[in-house]
């Protein structure tokens, strides 16, 4: 099972690079949807016995992160005239290179962190890499929608770290976290929809009226 888990985690890391490298908003959403699906499969791969807890977590994660949120985000941009990220704050090649640096950094840090218990080799590096890349997308992209995707990648990284405690963190808490993420992205999606209608593009760089 360890090898399956590591292959899944490798795909998770690769999906970050799709988010970093694409200009198309729909590809961005699709990549994060795949990432959500992979994350949903992980609890099943990681635990030897399937309890209600792990199955519930898997189903909930897939429903929220791979189905509901991506569909909703696609709805939010459907009317948008602009479907591409035109002027990113950091270029695509630079972003990809920074992504590589992030993964290297994550691997280096993960080696020094003593996490108790037995985990797949790639779990900690994948988690930290997603956290760093999520923050990178949030700052490097100007489109409101891409920033939502960055937030989702960040949350996915934290979810991966949470998997080191999967049998110790109670289901109620996991359900609460998932619900919070769902509502957060839902509200963000509604705001993205309104920004789009109000400004004719999804550029959060236009949001600079309020200042001192």
């Amino acid at each position, binding site marked *: 099972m360890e090898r399956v888990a590591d292959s899944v985690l490798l795909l998770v890391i690769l999906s970050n690079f799709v988010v970093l490298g694409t200009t198309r908003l729909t590809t961005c959403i699709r990549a994060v949807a795949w990432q959500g699906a992979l994350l949903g499969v992980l609890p099943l791969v990681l635990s030897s016995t399937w309890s209600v807890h792990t199955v519930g977590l898997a189903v909930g994660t897939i429903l929220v992160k791979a189905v509901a949120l991506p569909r909703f985000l696609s709805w939010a941009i459907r009317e948008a005239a602009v479907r591409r990220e035109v002027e990113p704050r950091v270029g695509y090649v630079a972003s990809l290179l920074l992504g590589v640096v992030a993964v290297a950094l994550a691997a280096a840090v993960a080696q020094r962190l*003593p*996490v*108790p*218990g037995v985990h797949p080799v790639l779990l900690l590096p994948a988690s930290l890499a997603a*956290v760093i890349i999520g*923050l990178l997308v*949030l700052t490097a992209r100007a489109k*409101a929608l891409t*920033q939502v995707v960055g*937030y989702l990648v*960040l*949350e996915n990284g*934290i979810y991966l*770290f*949470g998997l*080191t*405690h999967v049998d*110790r*963190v109670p289901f*109620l*808490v996991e359900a*609460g*976290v998932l*619900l*919070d993420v769902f*509502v*957060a992205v839902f*509200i*963000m999606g509604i*705001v993205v929809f*309104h*920004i789009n209608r*109000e*400004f004719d593009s999804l550029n*959060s760089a236009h*949001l*600079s*009226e*309020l200042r*001192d």
Partner: protein
Amino acid sequence: MVLLALVLLPVLGALGAYAHRAVAYRTAWLVSVALLHVALVGDAWIDPPAPALDGWLALDALGLVVLSTVSLLFAVVAAYAVGYLRRENPRGGRAFVSCLLAFLASASLVSVSHHLALLWVGMEATTLALAPLIFHRHDRRSLEAVWKYLVISSVGIALALLGTFFLATAQVSAGPEGRPLVLEDLMAGAPRLHPAWLKAAFVFLLAGYGTKLGLAPLHTWKPDTFGESPALVGALMAGGLTSAAFLGLARATQVAVAAGQGGFVQPPLIAFGLGSLAVAAAFMIGQTDVKRLLAYSSVEHAGLLVLGLGLGGVGAYGSVLHLVNNALVKGLLFLAVGNVVLATGTAAAGSLGGLLKGLPASGLLLVVGLFAVTGSPPFGPFLSEFTILRAAFNGGHLWVAAVMLTLLAVIFIGMAAMILEMAYGHAPKRESVRRESGWMVAGPVMLACGVLALGVVIPRPLGALLSLAASALGGATP
């Protein structure tokens, strides 16, 4: 049972309020849920409730202080909302009251959670419950405000979740004993917590809950959000949200201090505290919008709260007392400003003047609020700020005391310059100024009485509770 009821009552209230079509029904519903909540909190004072849900929900002194503060402030805001919703019809109509009640539910959850991940769930819910309320006008400015608020708060709070997981790792590294992330077990096993993971956890929790608290330089959402949202939402944010976020940070500090890491947590807390005071002072001078001025005042008071926490000793007592004072005085100021904005249609200080004549009650409340918020005697904040200052002297941090006093003086000048000009200055010509409604004056008057009373005498039960809360934070009673 009482603990569950404290959370579930407002949840049911939120659902019930959504079902009603008529505004009058909804506001009556809002006020009755708020009063029932206050009654439940009163019951918790008389008869301390037993822990529920396997110890995940419990009420200690610190939690009770925050819970009571939020509950009372909410009751006042609910009464104010009766008058407000009669005059204004915010977009989102039915959802408005439901979101307010959802905020009460989530803030109650934060206060009674002794499971730190559950506390996180409540904290994120407070953020989300208020977001639709900022967005009530659906114009460009409120879009920008709600976007900044959502993105900055969500990223901050995500980091706090990572910090919470780090804390769980620190606990597991120490051994399998104890329920994971339950405060009592964390405190009991604190000396054994893995130091490196604990430090990492504290850093992330400080950044995360510090963002919610609005500590400089993580405060950038505050002026925009407070400036664009209705005044009663500002009152809930500056008073309620700040108290809840402080509780999250206080929990992290509590565990770190019990683990013997007091020396590690103090310097960043003091630095964030003084930094927030400095940023608030700098941006208050020359501010033109009164709501944004209050936002920077909120940054200042968040700074004072963590400064007291960082100084320790009697500072912890000062901090907890200041939390109560801050909620009362911020409620008072925001609601008074709300009356002014409703009556005149503007929050720009330049086009306001002579309020003591035009709107006598709100004008007077503003002036009282000004002296209270800047820590002048005989109001409550004077006492709590003085206690924090004493902690600085006691701990031998003379330069901290000196910097704090200087910045407080600058802040006083900045705030007084604008508010006194609004109260006494030349009144611009206006076609009509709407009269103040009784509902919208009664609440702030009660808050003003409260903040004055706390400056004169601290009731014995409250004093005892504050001492307990301070000692839980490793502090002392002055």
